[in-house]
């Protein structure tokens, strides 16, 4: 069993509770061991960085310093240097602090000077900060996930919503692409879901603008929901509690603002994993979303024997061929002759 250090983040305790419940439901079938960082504190979200530089990074670094004390093996697991953050904003803050403390050594020195006031210390580069989906796709692997599926999500049209802070700025080159990463698509496909092509997959949900500039945020939420709707998605799948909160909790206010009546439920990808692994909706926190997913999930509620997936219509002969799709993992040497 592989151990990971878990940095849950504040939302997991409140608005993103369903995320936590569903993560708890999938660790066992996937043979994962998450050990929470003792006495972790808030990462400061996107707020602290705008006020004070060194306190902001010290706040983040305290978590890294605490985590670095917990890397040793515990009963039956190997030791680890990986910190897992399921929230994209937390993931980015932790990764960024680790990176900038190296890129600008003077920052690292000052942050450590502050940490020393609390008898802590952190050497940048000691830990690997990774997001939950990174662990699931690249450590656990799609094969293992596929084999844990007992209730495939066939027929459920899902818009994969990665959000912005996960694939960018990507200091450690972990993702297949900055704009159209395929990790979430692949994972949902492994669950049997009907994944739609969703070009806004890494567009922003508005972040804290729901709090400080609602009109800006509503427009961003509208774009996401409208495009998912336009493409006949039944629900959106997200990897971040802030995205979930904005698209879910503010959807009705957005509708009022624009005079629209979108109903686009958004669930955590782990909730969909739980469903596919045969867990009951209640254990997974399904039902606590404000835009309910009842109708959407009805599509998989009934156990209809699966027919063959519809194949794409044949291209007309006079059509011109498309170039092959590019992913970073194809390797750098690839070149057009």
């Amino acid at each position, binding site marked *: 069993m592989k151990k990971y250090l878990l940095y849950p983040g504040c939302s997991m305790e409140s608005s993103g509770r369903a995320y936590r419940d569903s993560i708890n439901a999938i660790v066992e079938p996937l043979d994962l061991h998450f050990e929470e960082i003792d006495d972790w504190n808030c990462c400061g979200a996107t707020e602290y960085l705008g006020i004070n530089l060194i306190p902001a990074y010290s706040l983040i670094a305290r978590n890294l310093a605490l985590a670095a004390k917990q890397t040793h093996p515990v009963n039956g697991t190997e030791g680890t240097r990986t910190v897992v953050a399921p929230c994209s904003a937390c993931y980015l803050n932790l990764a960024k602090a680790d990176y900038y403390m190296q890129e600008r050594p003077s920052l690292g020195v000052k942050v450590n000077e502050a940490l020393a006031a609390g008898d802590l210390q952190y050497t940048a580069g000691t830990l690997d900060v990774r997001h939950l989906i990174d662990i699931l796709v690249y450590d656990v692997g799609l094969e293992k996930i596929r084999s844990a599926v007992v209730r495939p999500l066939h027929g459920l049209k899902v818009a994969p919503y990665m959000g912005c802070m996960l694939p960018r700025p990507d200091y450690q080159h972990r993702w297949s692409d*900055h704009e159209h990463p395929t990790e979430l698509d692949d994972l949902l496909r492994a669950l049997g879901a009907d994944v739609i092509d969703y070009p806004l997959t890494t567009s922003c949900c508005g972040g804290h603008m729901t709090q400080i500039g609602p009109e800006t945020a509503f427009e961003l939420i509208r774009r996401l929901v409208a495009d998912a709707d336009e493409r006949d998605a039944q629900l959106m799948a997200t990897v971040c509690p802030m995205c979930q909160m904005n698209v879910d909790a503010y959807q009705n206010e957005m509708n009022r603002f624009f005079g629209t009546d979108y109903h686009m439920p958004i669930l955590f990808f782990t909730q969909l994993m739980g469903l596919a692994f045969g867990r009951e909706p209640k254990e997974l926190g399904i039902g606590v979303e404000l835009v309910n997913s009842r109708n959407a999930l009805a599509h998989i509620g009934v156990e209809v024997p699966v027919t063959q997936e519809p194949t794409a219509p044949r291209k007309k002969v006079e059509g011109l061929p498309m*170039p*092959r*799709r590019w992913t970073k993992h194809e390797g750098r040497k690839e*070149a*057009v*002759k």
Partner: protein
Amino acid sequence: MTEKVGVYVCHCGSNIAGTVDVEDVAHWAAEKLGHQGVIIAREYKFMCSSLGQELIEKDIKELGLTRVVVAACSPHLHEKTFRIAAKNAGLNPYLVELASIREQVSWVHSDKVVATAKAKAVVSGAVSRAIQNAPLEELKVPINSNTLVVGGGIAGIQSALEIANAGFHVYLVEREPSIGGHMAQFDKTFPTLDCSACILTPRMVEAGTHPNITLLTWSEVTNVAGYVGNFHVTIKKKARFINEELCTGCGICQEKCPKKVIDDVYEAGLGYRKAVYTPFAQAVPNFPVMDKDNCTYFEKGTCKACEKFCPTGAIDFNQQDELLHIDVGNIVLATGYDLFDARRVSNYGYGRLPNVFTSLEFERLSNAAGPTNGNIVLRDGKTAPKSVGIIHCVGSRDRNFNNYCSVICCMQGLKFAHLVHERTGATVYNFYIDMRTAYKAYDEFYQRVLEEGTLFVRGKVAEVTDAARYSNEKGKLIIQTEDTLAGKQRRIPVDMVILSSGLQPRHDAKEVGKLFGISCSMDGWFTEKHPKLDPVATMTEGIYIVGCAQGPKDIPSSVAQGAAASARVLDKILQKEVALEPIKATVNKEMCSGCRICNGLCPFNAIGFLADDNVSEINPALCQGCGTCVAACPAGAISGTGFSNEQIIAQIDGLLMRNLEPA
């Protein structure tokens, strides 16, 4: 024997004398280095002037100097000058040593005391080293008058024709089935809009029929040995499965072949060819080749339709790859470029959004001989676009991809704008960062395109998307950019997007460079000998680079370089022999233990092993004088002329002032 050393300190006007006390240096050298053999030390205003040179020549003759040390500028500037002066006075030129006290001292330090002290150290090092210098003779080798040109694009064709017309033989090797290169794929050429095929085809035919040119298409160079004047080259002539003696180029085989394949090369992936094919109608030579990987017979063992219908029985399924060995004196590399793979810029959607095209795709689209007969249409093959966006700098001037400017993309984008306007009447937008239209008649072309009503937006496009935000965007491709001159973000819906992709080095440029013994820059282009004054030669004598292999450039520049390299080759051929720098390594056979450590170290394959004597041996003509083997030999059996252990150690001691007159 004690050497008689003369030290000459140059003022270089005030360039040196302004910061270094030259009189003090000269005086000090005579005093402190006298026991080393310095019998005369002078300073003079300009040592490199004829009077300065005469001063040295006179001393050599009259004082019988056996070593000369000139403390002046960098040896890269005037080493040759003083060597010639020494030679004129009867002293072996390699007994002259330069001490750089300008570039390394006076120009980089400002304190006179410090600079003078350092100048003394540099002179002291040079004197110690000079004493250890040995007289050397240049090696003369004859030049083979045949030339190899690699790459049959316009640069290579030009180069081959110039040499062949001068009466010397050329082997023109091309990897693809036909010569012509990228230019054969184009429709029109900027800024004059000549039809590309119309101006290229006569040159191709001339190269294909020239009595002095041996055309080797569908062939690749696999090995290069030897050195300037005497290269031995191995060429793999890939099996065409067509007997060239019998084939008349009638084309029936292509017509009858049942297997259709996407043509990734000539049609840029936008059209089809057969498994047996000539890439295009005007191909030179006009014999088809069989694509073994896609041929039904090779796959399944049956078919042979081509063989059945060939009127001359030219199909030969048993043909094998052939290895040819040729000897040449000079090599011109015209290996061209690869188009930047636009799929890497995922925000532009190429490969995901059907109606995003690359520049090469558009060339084929607008070419009358292309897959749509020159109709500019969307990927559905029939709809003409009503609005088209052309994006400049795709993959260029971008640290995420290629950091350099690809030179041709601005003009290419303007050309596309003109063609779209002319053929479809669509609204055309050009999105650019900076409009780069240097060179003759280029900016006039820009003016012309402006006049035609093309809309220009200054801004690097942020993304191309099909996610409509507003109703007018439904079903369109939306180009989102900042109009930097208006200071506002704009979303412009269009039907078609053309990416003016940049140029990048061939994917195998590194390996090719290694094969021919030349190096690549950080970006991957072949490195020229001097970026300004020697742009077609390379650091390896006898190997020249022309066209886009050296860096992005347009057709006129490629042609000019092709011709320039030929002039250099002809110059070499007409000299009949070439002098090689005598900086070489040699093995002392008495000391060599036969361990062969050095054998694998030499990148030029200059070190051979004599099994009978159990010793290694260095071919002086192949040795380039890097000295790696000298440093590696565990027995100390290899010595390097010009940079011997004795010379370097003496220089170290000298620089550290361990050679001064004992107090």
